[in-house]
Each structure stands twice: as C-alpha cells, then as structure tokens.
C-alpha cells in the first residue's frame, strides 16, 4: 500500500512524477452497489463476513515469491523452461497452480528483446503467481502510456534500453495472463535456484525493470 495518501480534493491536481499519478475518486454508485450486494449475501446466509474476510486475506497475502520460484526454476532447468514457454498449464501444475479459465503466456527477455506487460482495458494480471497488481499498474496513465510510449515509461521506471534492443509490449486485454521471463544475469553461474530467487523482483516479471544485479542479492 502506498504511504502517500491524498485526502485533499484537487480535481486538476497532477503529479509530475509520471507514470505514478492519482486517478479520480472511484464512482460512488459502484461502492454503494458493492456494499449492498455484500450485505445482502451475508444477510441471506449465502456467505459469511468471515468467509469474505478470509478470501480477501488470501488474495492479498499472495505475492510475487511464487513467480520468482517459477523464473528461477526456468533459469536452472531447461526442460522446465521449454514447458513453461510452450505448455504453461503443465509447467504451472508442478507448482500446484491452475490458472483456469485463463492461460498463462510467458514471454522471454533475451539479449535482443525486452518484454513489458500492461492491461489497457482494466488491470488483468497473473494474480495466482504475482498476487495483487501494484497500484501504478491499474492507473490510467500507466495503462495509456505503456502502449503509446513504452520507452519513455520504462525510462521513468529507471530502465533505459539501447535502441538496438526491441521493445515488445503485451496488452493483456482478454483471456491470457502474462509473465515476463527475465534474462538470467551474468555472474550467476553455479547459483542455486534459491539463490537466484533473491534477484527476481515483481517489477522484473511485469517487465518494467531488470532483475537485481548479482551483487544486490539479499539486499
């Protein structure tokens, strides 16, 4: 959660630190509708308040650790990597994950290609693997600009790419969910999967940054 709350009301207020910017307040009707339906379901005994709380807790405690395990495994096990790239359902089953009815599409970064993921229409995200999407991933400016000027957005995230490297943007607009398979950094030869996991960050699996450098392990 952001520590930077905006209780003040500035309809024209923008932050210069794009792409992280406040959206307008959510529509009040949607909030009222959500509360009404939730209370009705509880009153009628369809679900209990505790079940709802548990479901929210489970969703919010899932994090990117699982994604890092999957990437580290792909870095250290070529057969698993092939499966992950071409038959992700089977690969994920080894981690007890079932994405159904969605499918996972894994896109691999190479010396020549950098992949970056956005959902322009809403906030589609591989939640079973990476948990809740970061706040900026859902904001309109990230969603609009990631497809329009990806290199400028990447630069604002501190990721500068040479012109020789192709940028491939993936709009996660329908039934697939996307995971970027970052490139294994040089200088990690002989590292165990557990050691490698420490280098694999959430943002590197969305494709807005690279993984950590080997010297940053455990930092």
């Amino acid at each position, binding site marked *: 959660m952001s520590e930077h709350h905006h209780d003040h009301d500035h309809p024209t207020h923008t932050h210069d630190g794009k792409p992280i910017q406040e959206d307008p307040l959510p529509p009040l009707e949607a909030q009222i509708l959500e509360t009404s339906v939730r209370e009705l379901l509880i009153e009628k005994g369809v679900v209990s308040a505790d079940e709802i709380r548990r479901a929210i807790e489970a969703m919010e405690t899932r994090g990117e650790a699982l994604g890092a395990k999957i990437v580290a495994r792909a870095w250290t096990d070529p057969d698993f990597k092939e499966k992950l790239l071409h038959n992700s359902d089977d690969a994920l089953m080894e981690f007890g994950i079932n994405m159904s*009815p969605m*499918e996972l*599409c894994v896109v691999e970064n190479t010396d020549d290609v950098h992949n970056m993921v956005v959902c*322009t*229409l809403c906030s589609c995200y591989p939640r079973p693997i990476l948990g809740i999407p970061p706040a900026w991933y859902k904001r309109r400016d990230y969603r609009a600009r990631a*497809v*329009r*000027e*990806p*290199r400028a957005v990447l630069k604002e995230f501190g990721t500068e790419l040479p*012109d*020789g490297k*192709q*940028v*491939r*943007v*993936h*709009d*996660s*607009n*329908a*039934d*697939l969910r996307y995971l970027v398979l970052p490139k294994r950094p040089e200088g990690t030869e002989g590292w165990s999967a557990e050691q490698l996991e420490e280098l694999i960050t959430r943002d590197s699996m969305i494709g807005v940054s690279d993984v950590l450098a080997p010297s940053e392990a455990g930092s």
Partner: protein
Amino acid sequence: MEPKYKPGDKVRILQRNQPGHVRTPIYVRGKTGIIERIVGSFPNPETLAYGDTGLPYKMLYRVNFRQAELWDDYDGPADDTLEIEIYEHWLAPA
C-alpha cells in the same frame, strides 16, 4: 472449431463502433498486423459479461503490430512491436 487464420497471416482489425464489454481497444481498430499465434476458443466476452453463456465460443488470436502502424508519431526504433489478443470476429484478411 477451426481457426480461420494461421500464424503469419496479415490481418486488419475491424473498424467497428460497438458499445458494451468489448475487448478490442480503439487504438488497434482499423490497424493491420500479423497473427502471432492461435490462442484457442474462449467464451465470447461481449455476451459473457452480461450473465449470458458466452456461446458460441470465439477463436482468439495474438496479433503483432509494429508500433509505427499504431501511432503515427511513434519515436522508438522501427522494430518495436505490440502484441494483443483479438477475437476472430474482429479480424479481416489484409
């Protein structure tokens, strides 16, 4: 269900104004790209979103565009691309 297109086929996204839960963003409508892969058949989100069954299922593809095709003023390298999922009923041969 047999897919109408195969990877490598050149396709144009239909320029159609359609209200509702449409998964084809306006920025790709009318643009020409290449089928990257056949994803498979999925319930039609345009009816599924309204409590319907989503039947008949629609074939879904990933379509690859050159960024310069999408944005006249794209200032990155010419081989930068964008890939997006498009249902068959939004595609025409190009």
